[in-house]
């Protein structure tokens, strides 16, 4: 080759002058580098979006370069691709698997009496979305309590929590917080994070946004005491939330339950005084739910937790204070036990040997009987207006009918029954 490069083409050979070769070389290098980068990326990726891997390889190779590569970058590249292989063991030690014993416990403990001093108070809080929203809500959350906010869909739970944490405004009324804003942590029901960050980075970001970025120590990246303590806090939060084994995995590959746990880790890492959890168990499996409740219960007395839930058994299990919302109005606020006592009628399950239908009929005619329902197999459920009248009246009616009482067991009072009793009443009566 004496003067330029000879290129073969369909129409014969073309002699490329040196200056054109020099001009085209960078363009070819960039285009080829982009195509090669994309092909390597496809080969290394665990998955790609919108089409199978082989289809993206064809697009990259067959489309006019570099259009195919750019199409892949924008529409095919999987943003959840991990920066490294998922670690088999958690960096911090063992993964936190819930055990029956661990789940037993803190949640099963009787609620500790909360301090009377309120940490959150709202007065006449109203936010009208045209008939729905919140109306005249006076919320009082005692410091150190676990406050369960329950209500049907659309009752206004999320609106109330959003106003309390400051991301929505009220039309009227006010919120009084006896806690610094940076000591409040919020975990929404569907947390979302940038999918290309790892779990560790997300929690580190949550900490840095509140506390400022950790400074590097003089002895290098991990040398500073502050850096180490920051790292320890992040790992501890991730472990506490049950995702200590995926610290270096990118969030885009997480299930909804894992994202919810990550949201909790972000809330915990700043060691808040007030923790607001909107439906914290909605995406968790039964074991995860139990673990979350256990965790919430463990905070009693040291942190104040407000959490909303549809699952009344969860609220009853951990909450010492309960607020019931319906149609934007706070129907009840106080201890869970008081709610059950006030809004639940005493109830018994009576087993009869003899004509149970006749006994039920006579029972219904008694002035003290609030509700009488045959439950099959000689069983009758009897609700009375008071414990005394039930205990005296039930045996008397059975005797008068000539039937025999096999057993008579009180039905355990639960929050769900109280909730249903309260929310089934007309609004004015319920309040």
């Amino acid at each position: 080759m004496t003067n330029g490069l000879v290129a073969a083409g369909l129409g014969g050979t073309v002699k490329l002058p040196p200056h054109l070769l020099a001009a085209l070389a960078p363009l070819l290098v960039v285009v080829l580098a982009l195509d090669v980068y994309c092909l390597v990326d496809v080969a290394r990726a665990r998955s790609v979006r919108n089409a199978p891997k082989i289809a993206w390889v064809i697009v990259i190779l067959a489309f006019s370069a570099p259009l195919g590569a750019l199409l892949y970058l924008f529409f095919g590249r999987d943003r959840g691709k991990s920066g490294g292989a998922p670690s088999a063991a958690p960096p911090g030690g063992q993964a936190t698997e819930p055990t029956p014993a661990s789940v037993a416990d803190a949640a099963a403990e009787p609620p500790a009496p909360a301090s009377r001093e309120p940490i959150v108070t709202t007065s006449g809080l109203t936010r009208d979305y045209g008939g729905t929203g919140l109306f005249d809500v006076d919320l009082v959350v005692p410091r150190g309590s676990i406050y369960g906010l329950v209500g049907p869909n659309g009752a206004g739970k999320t609106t109330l929590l959003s106003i309390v944490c400051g991301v929505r405004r009220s039309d009227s009324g006010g919120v009084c917080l006896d806690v610094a804003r940076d000591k409040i942590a919020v975990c929404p029901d569907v947390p979302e994070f940038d999918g290309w960050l790892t779990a560790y980075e997300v929690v580190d970001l949550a900490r840095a946004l509140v506390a400022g970025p950790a400074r590097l120590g003089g002895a290098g990246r991990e040398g500073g005491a502050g850096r180490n303590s920051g790292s320890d806090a992040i790992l501890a939060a991730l472990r506490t939330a049950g995702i200590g084994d995926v610290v270096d995995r990118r969030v885009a590959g997480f299930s909804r339950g894992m994202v919810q746990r990550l949201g909790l880790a972000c809330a915990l890492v700043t060691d808040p005084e007030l923790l607001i959890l909107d439906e914290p168990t909605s995406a968790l499996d039964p074991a995860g739910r139990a673990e979350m409740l256990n965790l919430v219960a463990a905070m009693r007395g040291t942190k104040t937790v407000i959490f909303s839930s549809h699952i009344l058994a969860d609220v009853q299990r951990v909450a010492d204070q309960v607020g019931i919302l319906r149609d934007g109005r706070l129907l009840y606020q106080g201890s869970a036990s008081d709610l059950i006592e006030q809004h639940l009628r005493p109830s018994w399950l009576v087993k009869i040997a003899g004509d149970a239908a006749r006994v039920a009929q006579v029972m219904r005619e008694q002035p003290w009987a609030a509700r009488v329902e045959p439950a099959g197999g000689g069983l009758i459920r009897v609700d009375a207006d008071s414990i005394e009248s039930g205990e005296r009246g039930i045996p008397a009616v059975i005797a008068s009918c000539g039937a025999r009482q096999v057993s008579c067991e009180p039905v355990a009072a639960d929050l769900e029954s109280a909730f249903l009793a309260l929310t089934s009443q007309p609004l004015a009566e319920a309040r």
Partner: protein
Amino acid sequence: MTTRPAASPLASQVRPRASWAPPAPMGTWRLEWLRLTRTPRAIALAAVYVIFGLGEPVLTKYLNNIINHAGGAQRLKISIPPPVPSDGINAYVGQVSTIGLIVVVVIAAGAFGFDSKQGLATFLHTRVSNIWQLITPRYTVNAAAAITAYVLGTLAAWYETSLLIGSLPVAAMLEGMLCAACYLAFVVALSAAAASVVKNTLGAVGLTVVLLLALPIAGLAHSIQNWLPSVLVSAPYDLISGTHLTHYLPAIGTAVVAAALLLIGTAARLRSREV
């Protein structure tokens, strides 16, 4: 049996295993850097500008040959005057002022569109004490990335043009880059403002593009023509064709002031916006 401390769930001391080192500390600046480098944003931005920078002068130089080769069968002869050096830059500017600008707008609107996802918006709004914590890094990093991509593309176009067509005046080229940088800074600020008005990212991109298209139309009014940032689009070509930089000073001033005002407006909107 796994037990947890009852007093504080975070009280447990966790030590990472020896082989695992925590990554660099996170912050809003690092977040933006990772947004560029861990997603296709940086590569796409650089690729679009550099490929146009490398390709357009070559096309300009051989446009005559390409057209005549394409029309060879019909013996159709189209004659285009031989290109001058400014034509190479003009072709590059023409491409990046459309496709390149759309890529910049998409990337910037995406960075500022955090309120489009309620969970992410709650995460950010409940943690930052000052909305500028979010705005400053996002604006700076995105504007810097756009300007860097433009400069890389211009250098590529400069190299190709000098090699194939002829040399270009250094001072005018640098002045052209300055004008384009001011315009891109304005475009990123406009994208941020659009994202603060429209929650949906696609809507923010559409609004920004419409506003950018409206500017040259507003420029039909001669009294304000020289003050509009849109005149900076053609500045790199005009400057090497003989126009003086002073001609663009009003537009540069407008772009800088408008960018600052748009960012202040963005902060006010984001601060008051409900999640």
